[in-house]
């Protein structure tokens, strides 16, 4: 599109601090980190800030309610010289609506042809990310663990205390729920009595149904004080209780200690190993 793009680095201490000092209390850790990223970028000096209002990305479902109000919340923390660019992404009435919002948003800045080209390039780049192999860790101990939780936690190594890295160091094969496309998780979630209407929760529970008999354990990762995740915890517990699959719930907030995390992970892996040996 011809813009000079400034992105913030992966979350770090400085960025989180920026968020913690400004963000309204009661907000969850990822939201505070997001505000930190926004403030970090604003300090860099920019004119336009891209914060889409992600209402829904799959027909009939919602993203987290925090994302619905995200642009309006962010508005509180930026100076008036910065303009917020926030197309509403609403797939409730069909996935095509999202492309439409992006294209319409772009038309303000460039010709239709250029916008269309930029859109195609962006989609190709996204496909590359989506199709990249995602399972990581090592097979040293022959343990398989499924990680459930929203992507803004599972994919952020700083916020989750490098959970993936720590599990890999323990010699465990890790798969995140996000690694399963909707074509797997949607049909899998149909067996639930009531399909969850939040995309992240539906993906996690769908992935769980899909892998229930193929993994040794499940770790659900949730921000502290997230009710959606608390409900997910109930459902995961109900599901795993009837099988051989073990379940560990991890809640993270800005006070979480990486040392405590290691201890819990080690204990969990030892337990899984002992269980496997019978």
């Amino acid at each position, binding site marked *: 599109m011809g813009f000079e793009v400034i992105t913030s680095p992966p979350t770090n201490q400085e960025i989180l601090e920026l968020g913690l000092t400004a963000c309204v209390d009661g907000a969850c850790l990822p939201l505070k980190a997001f505000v930190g990223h926004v403030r970090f970028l604003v300090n860099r000096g920019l004119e336009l800030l891209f914060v889409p209002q992600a209402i829904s990305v799959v027909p009939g479902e919602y993203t987290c309610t925090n994302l619905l109000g995200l642009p*309006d919340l962010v508005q509180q923390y930026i100076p008036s010289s910065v303009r917020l660019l926030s197309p509403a992404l609403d797939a409730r009435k069909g996935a095509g609506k999202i492309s439409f919002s992006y294209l319409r948003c772009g038309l303000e800045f460039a010709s239709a042809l250029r916008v269309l080209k930029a859109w195609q390039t962006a989609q190709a780049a996204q496909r590359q990310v989506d199709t990249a192999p995602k399972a990581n860790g090592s097979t040293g101990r022959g343990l398989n663990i499924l990680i459930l939780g929203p992507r803004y936690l599972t994919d952020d190594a700083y916020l989750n205390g490098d959970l993936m890295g720590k599990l890999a160091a323990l010699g465990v094969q890790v798969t995140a729920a996000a690694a399963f496309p909707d074509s797997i998780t949607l049909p899998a979630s149909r067996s639930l009595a009531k399909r969850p209407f939040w995309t992240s929760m539906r993906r996690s529970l769908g992935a769980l149904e899909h892998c229930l008999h193929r993994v040794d354990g499940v770790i659900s990762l949730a921000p502290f004080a997230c009710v959606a995740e608390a409900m997910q915890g109930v459902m995961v517990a109900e599901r795993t209780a009837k099988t051989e699959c073990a379940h560990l719930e991890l809640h993270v907030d800005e006070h979480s200690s990486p040392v405590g995390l290691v201890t819990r992970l080690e204990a969990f892996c030892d337990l899984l190993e002992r269980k496997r040996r019978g």
Partner: protein
Amino acid sequence: MRITFPHLGNAYIAVESLLRGLGHEPVTPPLTNRQTLERGSFHSPAEMCLPFKISLGNMLEGIDLGAESVLMIGGWGPCRLGYYGEIQRLLLEALGKEVEFITLEVPRGNYSRYMVHLQKLTGSTKFDHLRSGASLSWAKLNALEELEILALQTRPREKKRGATTGYLQYQLEQLRAAETVQEVEEILSTASRGFLRLRAREQNRPLRLGVVGEIYTVMDPFSNLRLEERLGYLGVEVVRTISLAEWVKNHIFKKALGLYSLAPLRRLAAGYLRGFIGGHGLESIARSVDLARKNLDGVVHVLPLSCMPEIVARGILPRVSRDHGIPVLSLMVDEHTGEGGFQTRLEAFVDMVQRRVGRLGK
């Protein structure tokens, strides 16, 4: 069928009539108390919000009284309340309670399940019976809100401290026992005269504070630590912005007909919120702006801990307060809210508003 249901303020009076009209026997759990909450919290995941825990506690107490089934409302997002029923069903099942769990919601997906529920609810009753039950229930719902509003207006002006609350309680009991729409109307007209008699001659105009926030914590006196009563005793006339009758009209009747529009709210919240953010977030902002325009003295915003839409609203309210020159107090409630601290904050806020009003010479 013996049916129990969770409490929401005094709404049980209307729900009882509706269930009787449907040919069922309502099993009203005891009014929410400390024990209800403790029981609900004990069986809930720690991070669930206050309304979830209280309603689970109500259900458990209703089951103890011999209910065979539980009635709950549901929905399809984005508010998580829509999924509470499902989680509560799982929790009750895990506790080994053998009850039929009926969730009232717009059907989606598996229609046959809803049909079975609907048949169980309405099957055994005649249409006439149902219609009179529904109209009685609707009259009671409107009447009880009217009584509560009269009490709100009377409390800061009452001659004898505490008289209003007692009188309201008495009238609500009368209303609960009423069997026809006629009786309901009579109670209402007696009460409106009765409330007037409790008032002293007015000396100063009492402060007027609006209450906005998440519907459950605003409507349920137990969860907001009897906020309206406390404010009344501090000499404040509370102005409600949320009405259950209104909610039922908008979200059930108008929405079903496709007549409900958020446009008026969106216009009020313009510049702060671009639209619906789930729950009552948009309402909280829009109503605060509205209250400021109506020249109220302040706004009290009530939200349960960890309520996502209200947290967004809470982040935005300070700007509304600055722009419109109206003091706003946000109160988060959870099962640990201490009464002392709560009272202190209310007193400080009321003092501050009082001084501000004096300074502005309003």
